[in-house]
């Protein structure tokens, strides 16, 4: 009997020793993963539904549209404040989707970089391409943060205002404070590296390639008034681009005349809000609409008359009601033209402008024999008409304010006129609750 007990007890002991480590390694849900491979990083960076969301503030604050007071009334309070360029845009404990999205995108890009760092076979082509893509995505986000929350690079407040940025994937890492100069130094370094890693062209317009990198650089240089470098960067993209579309061949009777991922799309981004940018009462400024000449093909391709006979925008490169806010090839033509003219190569600038113009006008007559001032005025007017509702205007407004302190804009709601004149109105305030949380 005693023996029997021994046998049973031994058997029991053996059972409890049975190795359960691998048994307990099984992941609880199929869809879950701990990202650890090139493929996983590809999945993270291909999350375009997440990365393509641009801060809506860039559109709301742009002086290219207006809405009636009754429609303004339907906006969320922060949207109303942003529309009127108020300094205090948020309630004391309000969080901002724009601010959260940008930092979330930054975190995912940082995470992708960290996973790549930890991988062993860094010689594979996939490694470089993924790292380049992550760096480009991160740079794009940092530029948006700078354009919204920091003064322009040439401003005398440029060293004064700093914003917290986390460059690590670790959410517990201490936040670094960046001013515009430091931030742009970092971005330019990253973009230079990305340029060396990325392919000339990627089959998907949601991914970065060399052209995307140069386009981002062109934006920075233009913002920094670094005309020659801006021109060179823009010219690279023009030379390697997929070509401008002949607007005369487009069908302006279509509800949305442009298609998604068309040849002028360099990098895909969009504004995702149905309230403001897809609202039926989002009207282009009348004076801006009136500035399109009769033979300007864009007038019919970009706008349709609403049932109330006011022009509304239909020319988005998303091919739908959401406004495109990525990088389009025409932006690079305009950047090249402006930069060239500003550093004195007026003819070269006009040449870029004419290349664009002949795809945009019916019976186009080239612009020639203009002096620098006339050529610049023409280029800026073309820039405003071409890039309308494409999310580039806010940066331009900051640039123009820096170049000419008399630059201003006005909006009217319920018979009160609101002005954008003060320098500090051009630098958006970080939501106060974020500051409270950061101070703990």
């Amino acid at each position, binding site marked *: 009997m005693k023996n029997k007990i021994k046998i049973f007890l031994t058997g029991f002991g053996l059972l409890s020793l049975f190795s359960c480590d691998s*048994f307990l*390694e099984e992941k*609880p849900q199929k869809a*879950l993963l701990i*990202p650890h491979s090139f493929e996983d990083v590809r*999945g993270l960076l291909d999350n375009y*539904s997440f990365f393509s969301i641009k801060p809506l503030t860039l559109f709301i604050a742009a002086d290219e549209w207006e809405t009636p007071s009754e429609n303004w009334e339907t906006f969320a309070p922060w949207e109303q404040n942003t529309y009127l360029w108020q300094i205090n845009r948020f309630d004391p404990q309000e969080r901002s989707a724009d601010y959260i999205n940008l930092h979330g995108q930054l975190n995912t890009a940082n995470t992708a970089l960290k996973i790549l760092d930890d991988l062993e076979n860094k010689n594979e082509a996939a490694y470089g391409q993924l790292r380049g893509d992550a760096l480009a995505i991160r740079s794009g986000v940092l530029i948006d943060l700078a354009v919204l929350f920091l003064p322009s690079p040439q401003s005398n407040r440029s060293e004064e205002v700093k914003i917290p940025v986390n460059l690590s994937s670790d959410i517990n890492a201490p*936040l670094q404070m960046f001013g515009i100069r430091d931030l742009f130094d970092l971005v330019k370094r990253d973009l230079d590296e990305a340029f060396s890693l990325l392919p000339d062209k990627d089959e998907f317009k949601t991914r970065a390639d060399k052209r995307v990198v140069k386009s981002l650089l062109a934006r920075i240089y233009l913002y920094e008034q670094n005309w020659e470098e801006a021109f060179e960067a823009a010219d690279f993209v023009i030379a390697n681009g997929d070509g401008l579309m002949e607007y005369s061949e487009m069908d302006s009777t279509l509800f949305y005349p442009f298609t998604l991922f068309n040849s002028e799309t360099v990098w895909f981004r969009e504004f995702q809000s149905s309230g403001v940018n897809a609202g039926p009462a989002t009207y282009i400024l009348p004076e801006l609409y009136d500035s399109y000449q009769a033979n300007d093909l864009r007038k019919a391709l970009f706008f349709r008359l609403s049932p109330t006979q006011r022009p509304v925008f239909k020319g988005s490169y998303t091919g739908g009601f959401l406004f495109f806010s990525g990088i389009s090839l025409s932006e690079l033509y305009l950047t090249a033209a402006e930069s060239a003219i500003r550093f004195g190569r007026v003819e070269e600038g006009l040449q870029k402008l004419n290349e664009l113009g002949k795809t945009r006008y019916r019976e186009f007559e080239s612009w020639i024999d203009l002096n620098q001032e006339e050529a610049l005025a023409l280029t800026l007017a073309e820039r405003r008409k071409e890039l309308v509702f494409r999310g580039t205007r806010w940066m331009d407004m900051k640039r123009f304010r820096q170049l000419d302190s008399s630059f201003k804009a006005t909006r009217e709601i319920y018979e009160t006129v609101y002005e954008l004149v003060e320098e500090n109105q051009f630098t958006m305030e970080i939501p106060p609750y974020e500051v409270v*949380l*950061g101070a703990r």
Partner: protein
Amino acid sequence: MVAFVLLSGQSFGQQNAEGKLSGTVKDTNGLALPGALVYLNGTDYRTITNEEGSFELSLPFGKYTLMISYIGMENYRAEVEIPLSIPLDLVLKANERELGMVEVVSDGYQSLPKERVTGSFVQLDSQLVQRRVSANLIDRLEDVTPGLIFNRGIYARNEPITIRGRSTINSDTSPLIIVDNFPYDGPLENINPNDVESITVLRDAAAASIWGARAGNGVIVITTVKGRVGQPLKVSLNSNLTVSEQRDLFYLPRMNNADFIEIEKDLFGRNFYRSNENNVNKPKLSPAVETFIALRDNKITQAEADDLLAQYGNSDLREQITDYYLQPSLHQQYALSITGGGGNHAYQVSLGFDQNRADVIGNSSNRWTLALGDQWKGLNNKLELGFGINLANQNSLTQTAIPSGYVYDRLADSSGNPLPIAGNYSTRYVNSIENMGLQDWNYIPLNEIGELDNRNQAYDLRINPSVQYALTSELKVGIFYQYWRNLNTARNRDPLSIYSTRDLINRFTQRDTDGNLLTPVPVGDILDVSQSDTYSHTFRPQLTYQKELGGIHQLNGLGGLEVRDLKGLDWTSRYYGYDDELGLSIPVDFATIFPLFYNPGQRSSIPSGISHGGRVDRFVSYYANLGYGLRDRYFLNLSGRKDQSNIFGVDANMRGVPLWSVGGAWIISDEKFAKGTKMPFLKLRATYGYSGNVNKNLSARLTAQYAPSFPFDLIPQLRQAGIINPENSRLGWEKVRTTNIGLDFETQNGFLSGSVEYYLKDSRDLIGQFSLPAATGRTNLNGNFASSQVRGADISLTANWINGKVRWSSYLIYSAVNEKVTDFEQIPTVANLLSIANTSMPYPIVGRPLYGIYSYAWAGLDPDTGDPMGFLDGEPSMDYLAMFRAATIDNLQYHGPARPTSFGALRNEVSYRGFRLSVNASYRFGYYYRRRSVNYYELLRGLPGHGDYHNRWMEPGDELRTSVPSLPATANLRRNDFYTHSASLVEKGDNIRLNDIRLSYSLSRQQIKNLPFQGLELYTYANNLGIIWKASNDPLDPDFQSARALRSISFGLRMDF
């Protein structure tokens, strides 16, 4: 019954020969008495009975005096002579004070006499379980279980029941359910309440250390009916019918439709609908607004318009839904059970059938259950084999869906002909494309009654074999195993006669260059099929030990290992152009992104309806339990358990959590000094220990998830992954430390008995959400940041007022729960706190309960304008933005907890001859809720308003009779927010309600000798009878703010053969 046995022995005249003394000990009801002390007077031979009440001793031939003692029973004494030819069947009589009620409590691992229990257990016997008539088992715990509350309203959504307060913030809140000794993962609807013998609710740390990490929220142990060895065949039949009231759509007060149309008219005049009227997505507008448009555009005359508006003003969608769609629901239940046993085996068979006619015409469901079980003993009772199979099959059929529409939509004209109402688009648009060759784009709800073909089928199977072998009379080894499988399939066919099917076809309809219509979604039915298949294996080898020493010491122990592996797979898919006659469907193009017919600017691919999922839950646990009893008076209990699970992304050494508890009990009344007092039973007991809780959704390592493909994906071929958990080293198990002290007592003749318990639950390392500055990359982080404490008491009292021909007993249960957050770094925002009554998400503040009701202080209505007033810097104010900005957690008004802090029930039972009347009233005190009122912001944006509208301030002086503000000129978000969250809408929730009444009449053969059956019970049961008293004047029930609790009545018959 005979209390002695004639014992005859055979003599072989052999010296030193050993013989066997074996038998079973039962009470007068035939229930086995495990743990009874069996000894032979004047010798050292002694043992205790096992779970089935059997014992066995080997002893030399000779004459002995057999003694059996068992708490609550009279001592048994008989002369025996060894050898014996047959096992003894011994019956113990209850001693006076217990009135024949010997309770054996099962914690799912072992059954113990109640006297030896040190932990906090509540047991509901079969009579209490069967008292209520319901298809659902868990309902039967309501208002009869101290410490357990059924949450109401918003709080019930994620946490239907709470045992002794919520001891977690974000983790699982559901108690662990044990069915026949194994954790049950399936839906409880699959368990037939008629098969249940008893339910035990384990409330303290003793439970958790037995059942482990999933037991932190309490454990509900369900034991089903089993046959007993030696029990004669018993056939029992139960049948009942329940009728429930029709749904009451008029419960929530709403402003009348004519007034609402006036508001719409005013908004129309202010061009409020202009943007939607011109919206490219052609959104629908209400019939009144369409009438205003038609009038403005001179499509109809003023007289026609007035006529239409008058019709709308008099029409009410709720009335028509009640007429055309609703019916009282009917529930029929049949249950047959057969139990019995022979010399060495016992069996049970039960069959159940429930048929349910839903409260919507055309919808129904049914359930079949089958349970088979057999227990067999052999090899001189050393080997025990058990086998059980439980099978449940649930079917539901949905043929009708209740339409949603505008409040005054008309479903039929005056002669009853079905009318179209606006579906997804404006009637103007639908009419404008009428003859284009599309599928009919009109939505005619009445034509769809009975047209849906949505069927759900679920099978649930449990197979439980077990083997136990007694190595010695003290040590037993057992192996228990359970296979569980749950298969759920749904087949939802939406035929072409359903609007949503035609709508999808039309949306995707394309026009080619010649103007011909192409239908990428083919014309035909849409068939959705889905399946989820889950199964688990649980394997549990276990050793049990029972030893009795010198009649003084009793030792019992058990220890074992439990391995559990649960896997689930699920998928859904969809077929288009389906023809149900022929079983054919048509393949479609899921890849192309089509412009949509009603707005070519909207693009979408055809919804594929495809999804795949899978999960794996694994547990490995070790457990041990040791009980020691001294002189049947002092008891000590130790238990411990370690659980390990496959929590994702946790290092191996973090996977497990060790849990333990220690308990003691002292039967004071058995002490010499207590003899002769008026208190024949008094017991003090206490436990202390740790339990835990898991949050399987979190991970300490970086985890990501691939998003399922979506019809609006721009590049369908790219796989997109998103981060769901950042790397987070600050994550571990939640720990709950529970102390429980209880006193059980009974006065002479059982006049008053009951128990009083006090407990303290300290939860540490609770997973809470901590807000981070967004610049870190995340807006919040989950970590073990919080601590909370629940203090409370549970009291249950039974009084037997009259105990003669007429019997009258009262049962009172009372529970007090005081939940408090003791530590949490995170400070919630004002908006968080104000939202508590509308969300089930807790926002902890140190020193306050997890759920509290907060509001803006109320300064009444402005006598001149009827605007609501609050306070700004101590002065009445109407500057809502300033008040909003000035609000802090400290200057908000705190009313009190949002969930009851004391609750319980009083049940009275009176019986006379075969009649028995049982009435249960329950009460909930000490909590607050936020009442709904008119939302002017929504009203002025075209949504129908609350009935308080008619009670609003209209002229100076009204502020004395009402607190409903005046109608503002424009939709003012801040003003509305202020009123909605003001103290004027906070009410005390305290109430007492009459829950149910059960009246029964029973007959048994003991009363009438020549009955054709053993017993018969006729019963009727009425439920949700209504509020007796409530603290607030709110016409609505505090616990049922969105829909009325429906009354029901049941009639039933139970027969035993």
